[in-house]
Each structure stands twice: as structure tokens, then as C-alpha cells.
């Protein structure tokens, strides 16, 4: 049974200055099963973030419908927690531990219980003992881990991640991908993960959805990645998937570059 359903979803934005509308996503159809790690891949500007924003309930589709567990999405909910692209969603006036416990505090959990869960969540993302630091005192990679711990600690039904490792250096990114894969293998929660990096999508996803070039992108193809357990870039299966997805993306990036030049 489908857990997340996007039925013929489209989204256009009305520009307040020029009064013109621009299409960000069109005719987007997708069903995601519980426990899937779905990677949404596409060239920059094709509408990936817009899809995620609608799944989170921050924006409403202008056409079509989004359902979670059969219910239409009406607004944001802690069932669908978000890890944002940049680190401007952390609260700089709170310590790392207080950032992580934010959701538990909002739910009114007693502080002793909170502390225990926060400690565990910090451990899960490899930041044990760093809880008393403020975001400004942490590196970019550590801040992304805080964001991930903050979302994991409330055990959302769905984790929505928008290029969470996009701003990290290659080394840190590889470590984080590895950690996230381990966390997902352990928890098997439903994840929608946005990226423009083919390598990242194939290392992490159970399925990879490739979008057409934007603006006004839609889903072009979905590739199922059948590699169990921890994944390895030297695995011949990985290379085959890479070539397949790369072929799709190459056409779309070429289109988007042409569109930009025009």
C-alpha cells in the first residue's frame, strides 16, 4: 500500500511583482511505500525542493493531490519532519542539545526523559559530548548532524531531507552518507531524500526518481536499486546503476543548460 501519494501534482508560483505565474512542478505522480528510502534526483531548478515543501505541508499544490497514509496533507506535522538544505533552520540562541530537544519540549516531555533521548540522538549522529556547544561553535558538517538528530529524536513517520549534505566537503559528505545509510538500515523509517548527486542517490536510495529539467519539471523515470546492506562504490552493480541514471540525467542537464542559455 502506498504510504505517500502524489497524484498529478503541480505547483505554480505567482510573482507579486510581475503578476505572472511560473510553473515549478507539473504532473508529478509518485507512490512511496512505508520504509522506503526514496531519492529524488534532478538538475538544479527542476522543482525538487518544491515537491518536498509540498510534502512537508509548507506549500499547497496548485493542482493534483498529496496524501499521507490516505489522508490529504493540510499543513506541516511532526509526522513529516524536515532536514533543510542550509543550516539557517537551527536556533543559534540554543545549544546543540537544546536544538535537538526542541521537538520533545514542544510535545511537553519531562526533562529527564528528554535528556536521555537527546543523548541517544547525539550519539546516533556521532556527536556525543558536544551537546553544550552552540551552533556557531560547530562546523558545517556537525550542524547538519544536529539537524538530523533534531529530526530523528522525535521519531517521525517520514523524514524529508533537502540536499542535506550539499554544502559539505567531499570527505565529510562521504562520512555522513555512510552514517545515514547505517541509521536507515537500523531504523527502516520512510525517507524522501533530495539530491542532485547521482552517486549519493545510488548509495542511499531504495529507489531513485529522476526528474526532467526545469523549470516546471516532472518525474521522468524511477530506478529501483537492488543492493542490500551497506553499499560500495566499487561494487559492479553500483557502477551499472550509476551508468543507467547518469544517462538519464545527462539529457536533462543538457536541456536545462540550453534553457538557461536561451
Amino acid at each position, binding site marked *: 500500500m502506498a504510504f505517500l501519494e502524489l497524484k498529478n501534482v503541480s505547483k505554480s508560483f505567482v510573482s507579486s511583482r510581475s503578476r505572472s505565474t511560473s510553473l515549478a512542478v507539473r504532473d508529478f505522480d509518485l507512490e512511496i511505500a512505508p520504509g522506503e528510502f526514496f531519492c529524488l534526483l534532478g538538475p538544479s531548478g527542476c522543482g525538487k525542493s518544491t515537491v518536498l515543501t509540498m510534502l512537508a505541508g509548507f506549500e499547497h499544490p496548485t493542482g493534483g493531490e498529496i496524501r499521507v497514509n490516505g489522508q490529504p496533507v493540510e499543513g506541516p506535522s*511532526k509526522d513529516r519532519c524536515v532536514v*533543510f538544505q542550509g543550516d*539557517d533552520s537551527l536556533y543559534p540562541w540554543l545549544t546543540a542539545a537544546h536544538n535537538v530537544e526542541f521537538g520533545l519540549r*514542544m510535545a511537553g516531555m519531562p526533562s529527564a526523559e528528554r535528556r536521555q533521548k537527546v543523548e541517544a540522538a547525539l550519539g546516533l549522529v556521532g556527536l556525543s559530548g558536544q551537546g553544550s556547544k*552552540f*551552533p556557531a561553535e560547530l562546523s558545517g558538517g556537525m550542524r547538519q548532524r544536529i539537524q538530523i538528530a533534531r529530526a530523528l529524536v522525535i521519531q517521525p513517520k517520514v523524514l524529508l531531507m533537502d540536499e542535506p549534505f550539499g554544502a559539505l566537503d567531499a570527505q565529510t559528505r562521504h562520512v555522513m552518507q555512510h552514517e545515514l545509510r547505517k541509521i536507515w538500515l537500523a531504523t527502516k523509517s520512510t525517507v524522501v531524500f533530495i539530491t542532485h548527486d547521482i552517486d549519493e542517490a545510488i548509495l542511499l536510495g531504495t529507489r531513485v526518481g529522476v526528474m526532467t529539467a526545469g523549470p516546471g519539471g516532472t518525474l521522468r523515470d524511477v530506478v529501483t536499486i537492488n543492493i542490500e546492506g551497506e553499499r560500495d562504490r566499487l561494487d559492479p552493480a553500483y557502477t551499472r546503476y550509476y551508468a543507467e541514471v547518469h544517462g538519464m540525467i545527462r539529457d536533462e542537464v543538457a536541456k536545462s543548460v540550453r534553457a538557461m542559455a536561451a
Partner: protein
Amino acid sequence: MTPSKTATLPPPIAIPRPALGPIARFLVAILPSIIGFLSLFVAWHVAAAYLVQSVLFPTPLATFGKGLELALSGQLWIQIGASLKRIILGFAAGSLIAIPIGLAIGSFRTFRKLVEPWTECLRFIPSVALITIAVIWFGIGEESKIFLIIYATVFIVILNTAAGVSAITPNKIRAAQALGATRWQVFAFVGLPATVPYILTGMRLAMANAFTTIVAAEMIAANAGLGVMLWDGRMFMMIEEIFVSLVCLGALGFITDRLFRLAILRFAGRFSPTM
């Protein structure tokens, strides 16, 4: 408008120094400030004692002597107390009025449109220009002065508070929503703390306004206060009293401003501008 819109310069980049003990480090750190203050008084002394050499320009020593005399007689404290009381009352009332209005302007577009004509027109009328009408309306008692201080405080705090609310990045709000925060929780746990540095900056600027206003108002209509000291000093040619009042104004302004800076640093020290 950003909180950096103040009269102070950004701190210079720190250059690493060889290791020193804590006391020595502290002395080295405050030495430039001490030299700066001393140079102020040395310049004053040189100007008064050697360059001008007139009874119309007392030296720092003469001024402090007079100040000590007035302090011991209790006169000085009455004047300072009168001015400070008006400033504190008006400033507190003005901030209490302004902060909710600023928060509402920043949060609700309709409210902004409703209130903007008021703030945008009235804030260009300086509080000093309202002294005459305040005296006609409220008499020469405390009410007129407190009204003027409120007026001097309100607009600048409103504008800074509203600017603070609009400066919150949308992702901070969205993150809270996706973590289960209710509307009220988003306001109390995200909107308010993110705005505090802006509110404090607005209050800091308003405090400077309050000092200007109170002196002018007291010079025109009051029985006690540092402004009265200035005016009486002119009427009765008590130059030293004038200088004592000026020094007190400088010192009080400096101390209150430092207190605000400390509060801003405490609340906003972690508030990296890039985040």
C-alpha cells in the same frame, strides 16, 4: 534596518598575543580604554587651564570639586534622581507599548498596513518639537515629561522590533512547525528569542533619544533635573554647575549604554549574523 545601525564601530580583529597571566591579560585589555578616558580629561584640563584660561571654562578638577560639594549636600542626587526617574518611567512605558506593536507589525501584514501611516508620519516629528504642546496638555508636572519620553522611545523600538520579526529566516519557523510546535509555541520559542537582539538594539537607540528629550524638556518646564541645572546655571551664571550637569549626562548615558551592550551581547552573542 539591522541591529548594527548603531553609533559604535565593529570591534577590530584580534591579533594573537603571547600568553600572559589572567590579571596581566585583563590589564592589557583595558589599558587602551583607560588611556582613552584619561586623554579626555587631560585634553579638557589643557584646554581649560592653559588655552582658554577663563572662569567661563572650569577645569576638570574644579568641576569635580563642585560635583563633590553638590553630592555631599544631596543637591546633585535630587537632580539626577528627578531626571533618571522620568527617563526610566517613560522609557519602560514606551518600550512596553512599542514591543507588542512591533511584534504585531512584523507578524501580520494587515496590521502593518493599518499602523504604518501612524508610525511613518509621527516618527519624523522630533519629540523636542512636542514639548510646547505637551506642557499645554499635561502641565509642567511629571506627566508632560513622561509623555515626551514615551514618545521619544516608542517609534524607534517599534521599527526595530518589526525589523527583527521580518529578519527571521522562514526555515526557522518551518523547522519548528515540522517539529510539532503550535502557532503560539512558534511565536514564544522561535519568533520572540530571534527578535530579542533587535528589540534591545531599538531600546538602546531609544535610550539615547530619551536623554536628549529629557534635557530639553526640563530646560523649558521643570522644577528639578539635570536640564534644570543647566538652565539655572545659565540664568545665575553658575558655570561649574553647568559642567557638573554635563559630566553627569555623559556618565549616565555611558553607563546605560554599556548595560544595554552587555545585554545585547549576552542575548545575541551566539546570534551569528550569517545564520
